[in-house]
């Protein structure tokens, strides 16, 4: 187990290095920059140069890269080039908890709703319940999130005015974003569980369990679900990572002060340090989530535990 984790951590470190490097140079390769002369016509070239020098942008890119890596080694992600006075660490610390909060709620909702729905669909295969949950699940993955967000916004914020259109901190601000975020995962989990459940109930060990005279509750609740849940565990890792790090569309629509907006805005602002910070954070978070999922997987599935 320890060896397995070590190996995974090693891969993650290499991945991170590569991620940082590729992002860094790709970011510098795209046209424009945080202090482009065209955008700041009214600034004297000398002043612009001074600003660029302050952020080390006057150095050759390779030198900037070296400096960045040096700071990174000390855990310093630098200061935002656009949001003056804010360090990237501060920005992440301020916005991540918000995204994490709604993300985690959405994950929990997705699990609580998706798993039973999928199980019911599989057990009552071909029944009306199956059809309904599958159609619902397909709807969930067929409508783009931003369209759903817009529709909910239109209906509940504009027409019915049940929810505020902006603001943050209270339960009423959470509900719509969480609903939007969890729809697609519910759909995916339902479908995943259904298909894995269908496969599992055909397995010999389920027949064995029945032949032992176990009740249906035991057969399904103990023997089938645990096996059927394995694919979901694999799915939940990346899901947790992507939901907790925020969705740009949702956060923009519902004015959520989360990290997801930095993800896109930093790129269009060419806020180099924030681009890097968000990427590193996101990449690391994904890797941690994947690692946790693998550990959880091994915990549930003894075969993996010993194979490593």
């Amino acid at each position, binding site marked *: 187990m320890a060896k397995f984790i070590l190996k995974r951590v090693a891969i993650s470190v290499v991945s991170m290095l590569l991620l940082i490097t590729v992002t860094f140079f790709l970011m510098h390769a795209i046209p424009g920059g945080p202090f482009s002369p065209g955008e700041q016509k009214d600034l004297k070239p000398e002043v612009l140069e001074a600003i660029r020098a302050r952020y080390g942008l006057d150095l050759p890119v390779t030198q900037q890269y070296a400096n960045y890596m040096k700071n990174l080694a000390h855990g310093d992600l630098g200061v935002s080039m656009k949001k003056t006075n804010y360090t990237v660490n501060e920005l992440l610390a301020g916005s991540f908890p918000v995204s994490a909060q709604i993300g985690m709620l959405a994950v929990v909702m997705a699990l609580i709703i998706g798993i039973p729905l999928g199980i019911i669909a599989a057990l009552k295969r071909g029944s009306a319940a199956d059809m309904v949950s599958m159609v619902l699940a397909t709807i969930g993955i067929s409508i783009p999130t931003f369209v759903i967000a817009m529709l909910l916004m239109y209906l509940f914020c504009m027409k019915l005015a049940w929810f505020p259109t902006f603001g943050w901190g209270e339960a009423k601000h959470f509900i719509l974003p969480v609903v939007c975020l969890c729809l697609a995962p519910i759909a995916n989990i339902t479908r995943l569980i259904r298909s894995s459940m269908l496969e599992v109930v055909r397995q*010999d060990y389920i*027949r064995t369990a029945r*032949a032992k*005279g*176990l009740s249906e509750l035991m057969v399904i609740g103990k023997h089938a679900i645990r096996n059927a849940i394995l694919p979901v565990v694999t799915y939940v890792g990346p899901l947790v990572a992507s939901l907790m790090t925020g969705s740009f569309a949702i956060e923009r629509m519902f004015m959520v002060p989360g990290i997801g907006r930095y993800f896109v805005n930093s790129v269009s602002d060419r806020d180099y340090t924030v681009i890097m910070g968000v990427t590193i954070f996101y990449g690391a978070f994904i890797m941690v989530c994947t690692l946790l999922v693998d550990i959880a997987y091994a915990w549930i*599935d*003894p075969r993996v535990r010993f194979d490593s």
Partner: protein
Amino acid sequence: MSNHLLEVKNLRTHFASGGGIVQAVRGVDIHVDAGEFLGIVGESGCGKSVTMMSIMRLLAENAAVKADSLVFDGRDILSQSEKTMRSIRGNEIGMIFQDPMTSLNPLFTVGNQMMEHLRLHKNMTKEQAKARAIEMLTTVGINEPEKRLKQYPHEMSGGMRQRVMIAIAMCCNPKILIADEPTTALDVTIQAQIMELMEDLKNNFSTAVILITHDLGVIARSCSRVIVMYGGLIMEEGSVEQIFYEPAHPYTEGLLRSVPRHGIEEEDSESQDKGGEAQTVERQREKLIPIPGSPPDLMNPPAGCPFAARCEKAMKICKMAPAQLTEVGEGHRSACWLLHSQAPGKDRER
């Protein structure tokens, strides 16, 4: 006639499938007595497993079971509640399956899987169940049972897993053990060990065993009585000797000619006293003749004898009507028109 432990009369099991109704079992009579070792043999798809699953009422929802009588231990199986059935399954009737690699749940320890129904059926405490599990593992010949209880199926070999399966099936002291091709997926040497184990268990626990197999060799060494099935019907039944030395049905003959019998070969080296049988083996090894053709389509079963199309002695009547089981000897019955009084001699050459 209820003195049989299990008595099945005119069992019919049909499946609904996309294209129509599959008549998997089309009227089968089986009886098993306490302590008996019954073998059921036939090609895959002949209905032998479905018959057993029908008895256990473990078929999928798309199956329908009908029988003139299906009585186990004085109780009518078909009219029992699902709850009663659960108390029969695993408790009074144990069952083991073909592939030990997939028949155990990979995510639970062996001990967990052994103890769950012990606690359920016998109301044992955890400790009692554990003690019983250890005892059973020892009985089926597994070393260090306490350690094994904590292991997961994938940590064991196939043979050992089948022993565990047997232990699971036997630990509630069932009256009948149904073994559905228990050795097919195993190595030849392991096969012998498993069969030996089953014989021992039958003797020690006076459990009746129904052994389903397509391996005549396995039948020959262990069973006292044999049923030969084909196309959802019983073709022939009788004692091992009757079936092997006086087959009364061309299908049984065909089977005997087509199968190399490892089991017997091995037993051969162990027990020299069955010289005659050894000779048979010799003869058959010289000339292995497969039965041409393929089994009938049970979605549209033939009106007559299901084997007619492949039978080299088939007559016109064979295609028109099925033959009923006809007594040919003490407890030896065969369903073949050749046994009809008007039929020509059995040795008519084609």
